[in-house]
């Protein structure tokens, strides 16, 4: 499904600030996998997602999605494969546009856009249906601009927008980190539900160890641009925070991860 082969990314190459962000990582993510990626600040988590999504390109190595080589493919050309949700709730939606306009834009992910009406009347009922799933009352606010919504509401809307077009790969970049704990939990529950119902291949970057352990069927820990450990299958299911500390405590340099 997603294959990274010997990926390397160096920032500020040739200067005194040179930093090897990703150091020859190879990963193979299978269809239907829900991978959580954890690591401290600067471990290379977001860089890994950026290389997968094409925000920038690797210095070495290859990226494949669904068997196609996309290493140097521009971000907007990869969009038909990818859905991505960021930490900042403002990044997933256009705030000056209405809820239905945002959904309609997501409906056309990766398709050519023409001079037809932006919101197709026939789809409006569908939007209302899927908004009901959020249980936030947004189904009655189709024509409200998104700027009127709270962070949690916006992040939930972003999740819905992703599901409209069912990407081959869903990238979650600490997408609950900026929300208050209660809202974060709601958004996480919704994420789990959407991923399960649609059997989406998902990569979730997180700062939060319990979250990384609770969700997904595979957990990868990055440290200084390298894979420190990679746990999957039954072993992942049985994993607890205590277990991680016992086995990797010596290597866990960032205490914050355990919170």
């Amino acid at each position: 499904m997603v294959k990274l082969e010997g990926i390397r990314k160096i920032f500020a190459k040739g200067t005194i600030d040179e930093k090897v962000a990703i150091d020859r990582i190879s990963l193979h993510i299978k269809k239907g996998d829900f991978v959580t990626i954890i690591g401290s600040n600067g471990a290379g988590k977001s860089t890994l997602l950026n290389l997968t999504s094409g925000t920038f390109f690797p210095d070495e190595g290859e990226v494949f999605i669904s068997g196609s080589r996309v290493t140097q493919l521009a971000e907007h050309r990869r969009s038909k494969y990818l859905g991505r949700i960021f930490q900042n709730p403002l990044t997933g939606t256009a705030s000056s546009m209405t809820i239905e306009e945002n959904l309609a834009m997501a409906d056309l992910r990766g398709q050519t856009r023409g001079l037809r009406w932006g919101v197709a009347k026939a789809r409006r009922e569908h939007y209302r249906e899927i908004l009901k799933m959020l249980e936030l009352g947004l189904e009655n606010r189709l024509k409200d601009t998104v700027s009127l919504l709270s962070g949690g509401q916006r992040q939930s809307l972003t999740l819905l927008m992703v599901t409209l077009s069912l990407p081959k790969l869903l990238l979650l970049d600490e997408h609950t980190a900026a929300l208050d704990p209660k809202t974060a939990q709601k958004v996480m529950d919704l994420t789990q539900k959407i991923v399960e119902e649609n059997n989406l291949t998902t990569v979730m970057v997180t700062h939060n160890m319990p979250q990384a352990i609770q969700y997904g069927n595979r957990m990868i820990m990055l440290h200084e641009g390298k894979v420190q450990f990679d746990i999957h299958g039954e072993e992942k299911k049985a994993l607890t925070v205590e277990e991680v500390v016992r086995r990797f405590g010596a290597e866990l340099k960032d205490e914050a991860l355990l919170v």
Partner: protein
Amino acid sequence: MLLSSLLRTIPISLEQGLAYGLVAIGIVITFRILAFPDLTVDGSFPLGAAVVARLIMEGVPPIYGILMAIIIGFLAGCCTGLLNTKLKINSLLAGILMMTMLYSINLRIMGRSNIQLLTVQTLLTPLENLDVNRFIPIIAFFFVVTLCIKFLTDMFLHTQLGFAMRATGDNEQMIRTLGVDTDNMTVLGLGISNAFVALSGALVAQDQGFSDVGMGIGMIVAGLASIIIGEALFGKKTVRRMTMAAVVGSIIYKFIISAGLRMGLAPTDLKMATGVMVILALGIPALKKGKEGKLHLRGV
């Protein structure tokens, strides 16, 4: 006495306000929709005038001259967009470069610094020869043209392509992940904007009876002033309100200006007055809230 004097400025304010309203709609597309501070306008306005004046002098029917002005204005806007997106030149500088180069181009097109059109047949000549007060058909003409452009703009911005353009100004990152080439959207939006501006220039030249290479100076600032005035009345919550604000704001702006002139404002101080108006409108909220004013812009 003062009142009747003010009332007499209404027809001229309507005529000019509607004609220049097209410029304000163009500026809404760049500054508001694309969040792109496009300064090409000061050059593309006289560009439209120059093209139409030259072609009319060459014996081309005015309507074709106007169409040509629209096309060339569109291309000028696209050039600014390409300077910014492909050559990565700062958006303000890209506009300034185009505006400066257009000055030479406009002189080339006209062959001299101005062309008078009073003695030739223009698109407006038949309207002016009607057996009624000159203002009635002329205002009706500009009313129809400007409202048509306003509604076309509203419609376009509610299409799939229009959504992509609005999202480009609002959240470039997001719409790119949805598969839109935001560079193309920027180029297209600048093209459309400057096409409207050039159309305005082409019509104004025929209305006032001459095309002059200096007629675009201060056009941006006047357009911004119009938009700010209009938004004070209509807000900027929806696209329809923004374009309505541009048209009505332009009329009110022209009214303020002609009223000011009647009350003794020297024509030479006009641009100073307009500039101060914009500075106050942008600056007062910033001073009050202690934060950035009303303009959110990309690439500056």
